[in-house]
């Protein structure tokens, strides 16, 4: 009897632990330990709006949109995809940016995606979604990289500033021509944007680490409560190039 009781209790515990993660995956625990060590985290799909396509037809360009504005005074935001060979996508020290981002990523197969937002108390809130796709996006060479004309466009940038529906929030959309090579394709080495600085004059508003699963010719959307007419966005790649873009 004791054993049965014990068994039922442990079964409940197991089910509960499992149920907490809305999109379970075999790699989640390992990845999260590696990124946030022993920090506390909670699954919080209520406060994090994470949008992905119903089905990602093109595994090399999967649009992702995260809106975590409900989490006040957030300090950091990290995106990762559990089953990509390179899970991490972006790591933002938010500074004066809000926990909002839009970008396109590559997926190697159907995978959960997570948006982790660190609140002011030091607890991570995790939003989860599943990306349905046939995959294969990480092991495809950037078509642009094979295009000899790429040297002409490399680093061509554009940044636009927009007013959003709320008058004290401004939206920055930045794009850059870059092949974003993962290095997973035989014969190609890693070549990707790995750092972005969002600046106002000389003041750094936010420092962002980026990783190679971001799609080629990346497009980013950020939001800020800072109220300026001009921003500078600096892109750095792992080859030591630096590209500077002024907002219009």
């Amino acid at each position, binding site marked *: 009897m004791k054993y049965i009781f014990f068994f039922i209790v442990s079964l409940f515990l197991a089910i509960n632990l499992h149920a907490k993660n809305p999109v379970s995956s075999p790699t989640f625990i390992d990845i999260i330990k590696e990124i946030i060590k022993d920090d506390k985290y909670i699954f919080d799909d209520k406060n994090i709006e994470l*949008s992905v*396509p*119903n089905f990602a*037809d*093109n595994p090399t*360009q999967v*649009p992702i*949109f995260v809106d975590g504005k409900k989490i006040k005074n957030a300090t950091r935001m990290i995106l990762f995809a559990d089953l990509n060979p390179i899970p991490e996508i972006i790591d933002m020290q938010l500074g004066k940016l809000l926990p909002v981002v*839009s970008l*396109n990523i590559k997926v190697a197969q159907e995978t959960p995606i997570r948006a982790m937002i660190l609140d002011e108390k030091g607890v991570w809130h995790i939003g989860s979604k599943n990306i349905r796709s*046939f995959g294969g996006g990480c092991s495809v060479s950037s078509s642009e990289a094979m295009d000899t004309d790429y040297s002409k466009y490399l680093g061509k940038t*554009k940044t*636009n*500033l*927009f007013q*959003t529906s709320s008058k004290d929030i401004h*939206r920055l*959309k930045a*794009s850059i021509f870059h092949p974003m090579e993962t290095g997973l394709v035989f014969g190609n080495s890693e070549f990707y944007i790995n750092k972005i600085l969002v600046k106002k004059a000389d003041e750094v508003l936010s420092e962002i680490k980026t990783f190679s699963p971001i799609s080629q*010719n990346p*497009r980013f*959307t950020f939001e800020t409560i800072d109220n300026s007419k001009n921003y500078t966005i600096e892109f750095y790649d792992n080859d030591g190039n630096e590209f500077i873009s002024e907002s*219009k």
Partner: protein
Amino acid sequence: MKALIFSIISFSFLFSSSFDFKLKPIKLSDNSYYFYGKKEYFSPSNGGDIANCAFIITKKSVILIDTGSSKEYGEQVKKEIRKITSKPIKYIINTHHHPDHFLGNAAFTNSDIYATEFTKNDIEQNGELYIVNLVNLIHDAMDGTRIKAPNQVLTTETLNFDNYKLKVLYMDGHTESDIVIFDENSKILYTSDLIFNKRTLTTPHANIDEWIKSLYQLEKINYSVLVPGHGIASKTKEPIKENIAYLNFLENTLKDSANKGLDIFEILSKPIPKEFEDFAMFKEEFERSIINLYPSYERNVNK
């Protein structure tokens, strides 16, 4: 006894029947018919039967316009044509390079297959990729499907097939090369995928401005029946008008959203306009179109 049952079962697996498309040609005139494809996306349950193809019986032969998305589909089209006529299917036209319109080519070994240079090249270069994609989407119905590229290049404004003349219109917009066939004998217009009737337009290789231009050209033609690439045949100009309206709506949405700095998912969360509520697969195809086309509109924002 057990062994007998087991052997019967394994035998039935060995000779498992191929996908049954249940094709029924729909008569358009004395000598013209079309096969109606379902207003759906590729799936194992429809076997990829999602596009229309049409045939015209002439004095000496049969002309086939498009061949569907698999060898098996092509085979069953051949069977259905055989029930009506024993004349040889000598001529095939591939209207454009999308896999739901040419992968049935493999079933026709003795036919001349006509397409534009662009379409022929794309089929030769990307054909295998299309097959891999469709195997993922429709599974078994793709069995035996191989690439059979067109062997004749379309260049003339008129085709003369055993003294049966067809007008060829070289257009674009849905892809970089869309062929429209006008049969002046029956006044039937075969528009291929420039027209989707009550089925949301697909845009993986589209140029919206060019497409709208092509539609205005089609509107001027005096036809009795229009056979679209998807959806049922129509005796009115209504499908053309609806397609123009949808493309304008799509383009305005893309431009306005890019100017306002919206995100893809903010565009997708807006309600469907009333006039397109009866389009099959609106949500799904609209999402595909926005994801695929929006980046180029974002790049062209001039502030």
